[in-house]
């Protein structure tokens, strides 16, 4: 009886212990799952919800193709395999949702590998996300740097690098489970071997893989590691002609430098990516302390991750709007471009103005609707304190192309390739310019390359029919207007000195053409430039080729304003048929102008006061936005 009671009591006690044990395991696991879910949401929000346009753009400025030339080009330098694989995977941001899922999946697998590799206790596993969070920050912090990134593989390169480095340490920690002493000896072989074998494929991440093993084992392996880090890059790059003598040790590490400028703040995530894994082998030493301690730290880390991601995210509205408008222009979605232009609240960039004007040109509304939109512009954006972004650094080729200036478009496209590498975007631009120029073989060359990519193949196939039959160009939306402007444009010789908008405007305002659509562009440019002689020449030309037709609204406004307000003498407006509403608004504008002036308001105050009523007129634009703003 007594024995039975003891047995029953023992059973009950065991049950209690098991339950407590399960709770001990289950609670940290539940917290970890919550943490992971929170991290996944964080990634999704910042990568896809907030930055889908940026990620698509980075993909579009990337380059991968299945040729051996490309593979060879990638693998000539340390980190070559990462570059090749990174470029390949970056393509999937063609569909931002797919790319985002792939990147998040890679990060999750990286976490799993790290957890397996270093046998990290569940309650401390959240620490493994620190370098991954840094990677997330690296993706969303770039802003205008996306235009001048030399790395076509940026999006995946470092994520793959971290994954590879952790994966390489997995066999050491898990497959070779000897005692610490034996493992120390193995490390002496492992460290130089991993660094030497994987330095070319993985670059700096091979050195990281060696370092992860060395730091946890013995002082001998640390000494060996230092020797390895010094010698392996030096020896393996001794024959290369592709880098400076100071580059081998950090080849593949992302530096944000342009000429003499270097922005270290953008490099912080990469320092974390390289430094944090070195502590992974030590995490298990933290052991199972009181749960509330680890979980409190977890909450703090989670909050920090959200905070860092929020603060690193590049939130400039115009930057994102530019990316969306650029894509809209490329895809001839004129309504979307104009809607985007209408949505902007504050001053815009000149690139946005030009994208919008291209949409208006294609809809034949440049002179009738241009001033309905905001033309108040900001100076070229400055990033990292001293880099001024001009249109020439952004989408100059696309803008030139849409104004029919294909040669200048090619020039800018090739120039960018020289500085920042080839891209799908550039290839498409070069193809389109070549087709408009009638350079069929050149177009074929680019199409052949695009045909060897994953997601540009369809576009290439579509373009091939234009190579075979150039008459189709005149009716296709992508080519119709650029071809017309190319044909109607004049032949000149000169340079743009990086003033893209000014170059286009100056060329077109002098261009007298008999084509009504092209002439409206010339007339619009003369209005933008506020050049009296060109304006009236173009007005005359409009009248000549459109007899009996009403002048577009903004041209009527400009004529009234020019003659009566700016006092241009010798201009006879008797031949012009004015819309009575335009005349009425003009009169109301001048009346209000005088009224506010007599009240002693300064120009800025007058401009603000007139804006609600007349902000959509040429007069307001001319009076308030005093300087001709071009880029």
């Amino acid at each position, binding site marked *: 009886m007594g024995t039975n009671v003891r047995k029953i009591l023992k059973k009950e006690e065991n049950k209690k212990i098991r339950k407590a044990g399960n709770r001990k395991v289950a609670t940290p696991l539940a917290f970890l799952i919550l943490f992971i879910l929170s991290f996944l949401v964080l990634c999704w929000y910042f990568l896809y919800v907030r930055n889908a346009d940026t990620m698509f753009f980075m993909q579009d400025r990337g380059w991968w193709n299945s*040729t051996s*030339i490309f593979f060879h080009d990638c693998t000539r330098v340390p980190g070559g395999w990462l570059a090749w694989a990174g470029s390949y995977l970056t393509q999937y941001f063609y569909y931002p949702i797919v790319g985002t899922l792939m990147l998040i999946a890679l990060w999750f697998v990286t976490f799993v590998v790290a957890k397996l590799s270093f046998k990290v206790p569940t309650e401390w596993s959240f620490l493994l996300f620190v370098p991954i969070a840094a990677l997330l920050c690296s993706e969303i912090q770039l802003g205008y740097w996306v235009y001048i990134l030399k790395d076509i593989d940026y999006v995946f390169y470092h994520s793959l690098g971290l994954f590879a480095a952790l994966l390489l340490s997995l066999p050491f920690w898990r497959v070779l489970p000897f005692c610490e002493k034996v493992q120390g000896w193995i490390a002496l072989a492992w460290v130089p071997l991993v660094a030497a074998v994987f330095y070319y494929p993985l670059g700096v991440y091979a050195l990281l893989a060696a370092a992860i093993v060395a730091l946890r084992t013995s002082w001998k392996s640390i000494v060996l590691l230092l020797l390895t880090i010094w010698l392996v890059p030096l020896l393996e790059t*001794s024959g290369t002609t*592709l880098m400076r003598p100071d580059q081998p040790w950090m080849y593949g590490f992302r530096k944000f430098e342009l000429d003499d400028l270097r922005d270290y703040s953008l490099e912080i995530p990469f320092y974390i990516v390289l430094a944090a894994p070195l502590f992974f082998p030590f995490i298990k030493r933290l052991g199972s302390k009181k749960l509330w301690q680890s979980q409190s730290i977890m909450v703090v880390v989670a909050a920090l991750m959200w905070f860092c991601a929020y603060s690193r995210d590049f939130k400039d509205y115009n930057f994102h709007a530019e990316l969306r408008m650029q894509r809209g222009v490329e895809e001839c979605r004129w309504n979307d471009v104009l809607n985007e232009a209408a949505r902007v609240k504050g001053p815009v960039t000149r690139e946005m103005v030009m994208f919008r004007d291209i949409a208006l040109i294609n809809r034949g509304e440049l002179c009738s609707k241009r001033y309905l939109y905001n033309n108040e512009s900001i100076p070229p954006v400055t990033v990292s304190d001293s880099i001024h972004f001009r249109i020439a650094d952004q989408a100059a080729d696309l803008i030139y192309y849409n104004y029919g200036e294909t*040669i200048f478009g090619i020039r800018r496209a090739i120039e960018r390739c*020289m500085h920042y590498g080839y891209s799908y975007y550039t290839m498409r631009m070069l193809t389109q310019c070549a087709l408009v120029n009638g350079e069929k*073989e050149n177009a074929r060359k680019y199409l052949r*390359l695009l045909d060897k990519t994953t997601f540009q193949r369809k576009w290439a196939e579509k373009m091939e029919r234009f190579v075979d039959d150039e008459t189709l160009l005149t009716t296709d939306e992508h080519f119709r207007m650029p071809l017309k402007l190319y044909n109607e444009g004049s032949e000149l*010789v000169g340079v743009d000195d990086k003033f893209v908008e000014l170059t286009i405007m100056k060329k077109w305002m002098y261009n007298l053409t008999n084509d009504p659509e092209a002439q409206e562009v010339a007339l619009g440019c003369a209005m933008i430039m506020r050049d009296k002689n060109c304006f009236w020449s173009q007005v005359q030309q409009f009248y000549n080729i459109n007899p009996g037709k009403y002048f577009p609204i903004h041209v009527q406004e400009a004529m009234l304003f020019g003659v009566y307000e700016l006092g241009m003498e010798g201009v006879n407006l008797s031949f012009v048929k004015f819309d009575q509403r335009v005349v009425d608004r003009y009169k109301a504008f001048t009346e209000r102008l005088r009224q506010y002036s007599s009240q002693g308001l300064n120009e800025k105050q007058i401009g603000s006061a007139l804006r609600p009523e007349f902000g959509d007129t040429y007069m307001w634009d001319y009076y308030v936005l005093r300087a001709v703003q071009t880029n």
Partner: protein
Amino acid sequence: MKYRILFLLLLVASCSKHPSLPSSFTSVDAEPRICPDYVGVTVPPNIAPLNFLVDSVDDVVAEFEIQNTKLTYGGKRNKVQIDEKEWHELLASARGKNLSVTVYTKKDGKWQAYKPFQISVAEEDIDPYISYRVLPPTFVGYDELSIRQYNLTNFQETTIYNNCQISRGLEGQCINCHSYQNYGTSNMMFHMRMQNPGTMIVSDGELIFVNLKAEDMISAAAYNSWHPFLPIIAFSTDHTMQSFHTREISKVEVMESASDLVIYDVKKNRVQTVLNDSLELELFPSWSPDGKWLYYCSAYHEYLKKYEDTDELLQQYKTLKYNLYRLSFDAETMTFGEPELVYDARSKERSAVQPRVSQDGRYVLFAEGPWGLFHIWHTSADVQILDLQTGELLNTSVMNSQLPESYPSFSSNNRWIMLESRRDDGNYTRTYFSYFDKQGRVHKAFEVPAEDPEYFRLLLRSWSRPEFMKEPVRITPRQFSEKALTEPIKVSQQ
């Protein structure tokens, strides 16, 4: 059993190397369209395999036949890639004879056999090496620029110098005008511009780095030519400007607003003015192989408003037409005679530049275009050969194309002409060779062979300014870069 397996393995291996010809096919009464176009060309007996591809087919097999030897290659989708060793054996037996090539293509499961075409194998070898600049067809930036050398007998390409070795930032380092004394590499040079500027000269195997800008010179030394045996280099010094067309597909106009000629004595580190007429734009000096003549080109230009008015020049760029001239040279006294007109291109409304004289001194090879000096941007530019004995131009139409040709040179044995051309696609410069026989006839030009016949189609860089070499450059890229980081020696002026 072991031997059977080995035999089978060998059989499989040999099958893949030499595919069998299709048993049934339909005959096509036309020569195939292959890329690169090697149909009917004359090639040197030491050239690397002429690998090629056929567009829009699923499979291709080519049979090469000379006397009783027949070899088949292909079977790798649409490419024919020839075994290097066998090819050289084949060519050795075909020296001075014709190779017959029959191409079979497969499309949608059906084979076709094209009319056989001939490849003539000349008696004379070609110089085994060429060197050239590799760069995107760029205009201003120099981020990525290298001078490389290519072994014409086996496709091997190595770098002589790459600007990535020391270049920083967007400005980059321009490297240009590589040249050699008498096809050797013990005496050679090239310029560096922008970052670490100077001229890298190898003099009797020794590397020196010189700042070739004396006070009276317009600029640092530019286009150049080594005297065939003296330690003297002739240079032009010039102010170059570049502008862009808005509609012309030639895209770019390069002009010189001023230019003179000088010679530089490598051993004495001294420059001496040769020509500095302010009304003449003298360019592209080139020694005759006997060293007694300095050929060059020059355009007459008189500025109306002020000297070197670039705006004026921009308005008148089409009037800049270069003629070919030469000066006699006395090596004893280091003096030159009076300019002697060699070819009056201006009277023909053309512009002749980049002269090169044949080893026997009889022919002058040059590039001719509508105006100006940078004919690789002029679609109507061709390579011409002037026979100095008759004063007539030879018929070079088979060597030229509808697209730009420029920068011609003779091989050391005179039998091969190398030129750069944009005939492939109009934008990317490629190297072509043409056989120049003893009777003074030019033969159809062919593209430098590549291991992968698709290579040049896909390559997004130009090969520009090719030069023949008898041997590879022996100074290593690192030696050049280390030297470039030193202070260049200042030149003195006579």
